């Protein structure tokens, strides 16, 4: 029982990270309709930027988080500039752009940050006991930051004018244009927000895992799985799927095999696609 709860808690923490990445991806997808296979690379970059700030400039985690998120926003802005040039063309053009980005970002960070694994200093390693669960402060920070970020995103989309405009663009781009919403600008903000969230996930997890230039590949797979399971374009769906995937992965890894921990996720993805292609919370989109 204790093992189960421990696995559940670990799954919840990693689920938070998946959640942030998937929300970032679904924000971008719902407005731009692109398969951004380079998405995980921004997770990797978030972690590396945090590491770089702490190791070379100031030994302050929160500053590192702030800089990583800002850098994510800037990278998102630049990425959108490239993607928008092939907007509306076939799926494969966008795919090719993401392929180019993967090559540039992965090999670029290998040149800048080195090919060996790095890890961000853990400023908050104190282990606490909450109920049955032993958990360190960094993990609590991940959970807290994720809850705040999700709440922020949901409130933004629900109540602010720009959030509503973005939802309108996602729902019907042309219709939104008719009422005076600039779709290009909405894509830009979606990219800035989406990539910033992904970079946040990277810098949050960096103190607990070792960074490698290739870690993004796996995260891209995870993020796509989550948004399909949750229903493409649904932020709440992506969040729930993120938690679910994290928990299933950890429990499967604890009881069966860590090497196969991702297998149930991909099987689940295929299943959802066959049985309910629109995902658990998805709506038909034009």
């Amino acid at each position, binding site marked *: 029982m204790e093992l189960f709860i421990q696995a559940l808690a670990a799954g919840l923490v990693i689920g938070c990270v998946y959640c942030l990445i998937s929300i970032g991806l679904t924000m971008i997808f719902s407005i731009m309709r692109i398969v951004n296979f380079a998405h995980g690379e921004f997770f990797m970059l978030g972690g590396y930027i945090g590491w770089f700030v702490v190791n070379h400039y100031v030994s302050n985690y929160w500053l590192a988080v702030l800089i990583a998120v800002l850098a994510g926003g800037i990278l998102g802005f630049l990425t959108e500039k490239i993607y928008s040039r*092939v907007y509306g063309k076939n799926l*494969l053009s966008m795919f090719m752009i993401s392929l180019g980005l*993967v*090559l540039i970002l992965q090999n670029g960070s290998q*040149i800048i940050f080195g090919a060996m694994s790095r890890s961000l200093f853990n400023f908050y390693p104190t282990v606490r006991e909450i109920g049955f669960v032993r958990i360190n402060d960094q993990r609590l920070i991940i959970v807290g930051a994720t809850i705040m970020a999700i709440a922020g995103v949901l409130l933004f989309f629900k109540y602010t004018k720009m959030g509503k405009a973005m939802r309108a663009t996602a729902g019907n781009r042309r219709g939104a244009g008719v009422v005076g919403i600039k779709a290009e600008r909405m894509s830009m903000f979606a990219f800035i927000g989406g990539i910033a969230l992904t970079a946040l996930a990277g810098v949050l997890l960096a103190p607990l895992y070792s960074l490698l230039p290739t870690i993004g590949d796996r995260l891209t797979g995870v993020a796509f*799985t989550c948004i399909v399971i949750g229903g493409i374009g649904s932020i709440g769906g992506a969040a729930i799927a993120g938690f679910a995937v994290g928990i299933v992965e950890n429990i499967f890894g604890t009881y069966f095999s860590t*090497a196969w921990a991702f*297998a149930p996720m*991909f099987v689940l993805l295929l299943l959802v696609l066959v049985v309910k292609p629109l995902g658990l919370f998805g709506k038909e989109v034009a």
Partner: protein
Amino acid sequence: MGRRSLDTNKKNISYLAGIAVAIILPLVIRLTGAYWAHILILIGIYAILATSLNLIMGYTGQADLAHSALYGVGAYTSGIIAIRFGINFWITLPIAGLVAVAIGSILGLITLRLRGTYFALACSAFLFLMSMVFTNLRNLTGGIQGLLFIPSASIGGFVIHQKDKIIWTYIVFAVLLLTIFVVDRVVHSRVGRALIAIREDEDLAKSTGVNTFWYKMIAFVVATFFAGVSGALFATYNGMVTPANFDIILFFMIVAACFIGGLGTLLGPVIGAVIVVLLPEILRVTGQYYFVIFGVFIIAATLFAPDGVIGLVTKARKKLARRQQKAVD
């Protein structure tokens, strides 16, 4: 009728030219040393993969991201049966293709009902799943170290070693020509017209009575067979396979080959394969930056030559024709 026989003649001449190139090129390259002969073999294998992928991606318009995983299935199949049962390469070659088709058919039955992005995502799930199988099914695949000491091919008592580059080049080129021939025949048939109709507008194709699912399945199965065969070629030539041989980068390269060469054209993928294999080799002079530069090249190619090399050539030709027309006027 006259027109048709003219076209057939033209095509036969192209095939003869292709065979001539396939015979002469290895002999010329051999003079420059074993390294470039190795590159030539790689180009051949990539060209087989890209040509077969083009059938489903270029002609049918389905973003099949599982191709390299099925290539891996072929490679592992031939390696495993050659090591365990000592089966000759000439028998493992078609078996690898058939096993890939068997697994690919199951995938196709599940995913080909999906469209666009959803199909692409389902295929990518399969890609991730297979890479996990290659790495973790240690008893069968040898895990992360992979399969070592895969027996060489042989004819009678004559063994074709890895260093016999010319013979290997001929084997690979023969399979490549066969692939091009089969894709050509499929495309210029009733099936091919159905596939192109699906690419242009799937709903419309369906409404005119085309069983889109089964036509997509035919394209998928044909493409998968050659993916499996090229896997067997690679495994036997290389003598070993590891999961790293079938990573996401390889899959990117094949798609890039199709795209840069020209999707939905017969020779585009071959030209693309030459570019994606050769360009990184040439860029090696830039040291560690070569993959970054290659990435920039791919983005530039997508933005400025969306129809690939073949598209550029066609455009240039049209321009030339127009200029000549003007000159006549």
